[in-house]
């Protein structure tokens, strides 16, 4: 009984997070104020991190919080503040309903196609979680899969890992080179 209630509560919580994420994401597109949109994006990313926890990908959820919510969006907000002359400058003045409507139409088609495609995938994830975590039950309090993730990341996928780090270094140098004021 308790177990059933627990699973029902978890399902309810899952759908609340989903609703929050979708609402925030929609707000990103329709908000007139750009900074409000950026803030809504932070909420949407928070929601995605929540879904990662439901998928027992704790490490990924933490990385999502640190990199996206704590890093990228703060930078985006910085850029918004620097690319507006006044506070009012962050409010978009003109809206073309054609653009909004056309965009919504394309998005709707994408969504409908996705839902039609995925409707057959009935894999219950709660069970999958239980199966996947079973192998790690013996390790004390390490998150399931966290250790395996480390092994895979620095073993089988070492090359992509190193390539990504070189790419980040290049991007860093490039970004600094682009924004640096030229001294003549």
């Amino acid at each position, binding site marked *: 009984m308790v177990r059933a209630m627990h699973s029902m509560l978890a399902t309810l919580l899952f759908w609340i997070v989903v609703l929050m994420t979708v609402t925030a994401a929609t707000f990103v597109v329709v908000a007139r104020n750009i900074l409000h949109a950026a803030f809504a994006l932070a909420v949407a990313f928070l929601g995605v991190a929540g879904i990662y926890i439901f998928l027992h990908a*704790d490490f990924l*959820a*933490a990385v999502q919080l640190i990199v996206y*919510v704590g890093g990228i969006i703060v930078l985006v*907000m910085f850029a918004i503040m620097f690319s507006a002359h006044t506070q009012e400058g962050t409010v978009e003045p003109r809206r073309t309903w054609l653009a909004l409507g056309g965009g919504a139409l394309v998005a709707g088609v994408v969504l409908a196609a996705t839902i039609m495609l995925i409707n057959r995938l009935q894999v219950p994830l709660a069970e999958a979680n239980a199966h996947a975590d079973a192998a790690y039950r013996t390790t004390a*309090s390490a*998150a399931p899969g966290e250790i395996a993730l480390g092994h895979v990341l620095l073993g089988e996928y070492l090359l992509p890992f190193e390539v990504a780090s070189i790419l980040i270094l290049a991007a860093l140098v490039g970004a600094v080179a682009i924004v640096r004021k030229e001294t003549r």
Partner: protein
Amino acid sequence: MLSLGLDASAVGWKLLPVLLVFGAVLAVVPLLVYLERKVCAWIQNRVGPNRVGLLGPDGLAQGVLGFSGGGKRILGGLLQPLADAIKLISKEDFIPAQADKFLFSLAPFFALLPPFLTFVVVPVGADLTFGGTTVPLIVADLGVGMLWVLSVSSLAAYGVQLGGWASNSKFSLLGGVRATAQMISYEITMGLVLLSVFMHYDSLSLREIVQAQATYFDPLLGRLAANGLGSWGVWHQPLAALLFVICAFAENNRLPFDMPECEAELVGGYHTEYSSMKFGMFFQGEYIAMLAMGAVISTLFFGGWHYPGYASVAAASPNLAALISLAVLGAKVMIFVLFQMWVRWTLPRFRYDQVMELGWKVLIPLALVNLVVTALVNL
């Protein structure tokens, strides 16, 4: 891991650490406000708040009961935070006309909430046992505990940034931008430091880190010894401890890193336009952040709730040992809070370019060196 799979009786016990931790934090914050003013007064050779107290000619007892307590002021000023709170609540809650009202009202919550969330992963004491049920004194033992600390401290940047921007005032905006840049810069060092601590202990869980600090290899005895001060993480990772403490100051925007507030140039920085309880929330958030940083520092580097002689007390009575461990962690946290106050009223403020230079040219290279050395040692 978000696993609530437990039976109904355990759910009740699960609430105990939650109530304990958050109740204690809320109760201690007003005390810290009083303490800060007293410490400041001692350092500057003043008296500090000494009027609004319980006993004495101006005390609460005199006002309510007509009992002066012999005319001597005992612990005068102890009720000063209460008076401050009444003053803050009864003030006008002013929102500037040109401010972004939504974000202006939201920002103080982001100053208050993240430091609270840090306490979620801090183990505050040894396990209590009630009739066969073991109650771990930790709100949630996350497998990714240290990453949690890092991610909630990065959330704190939102409070200052949104608050500074939404006020629509140049002082606030400058304060907010400075604060965000500073917090992001010092977060890198913090992450690198946490990485080397993780390498040393082979665990991200703060609970396991505390347990790892319970025993250490005693070179004199030539075997593992229990519960000495020698098992503290600070002896294994001294540079990391130093860097982490410096970053903690910068993350909390405390002097010598209080660029964002910087009364001399920026009026009040990001909270210039805030008044009443919204200002009060920024204010409280700072003290909770001090407590949170004290708790994390003592957990990572100073043995957490462990104390010499824990094993022998626990053998006699586990619950007594757990209660002592609670008090021990509280004492350690208070020592670090007092240290932060001492530093604040002693050191002058950095210039903004000095803050950035220290962060990027000194602390990050040092943290990297520490990381590489730790990696080589643990190879």
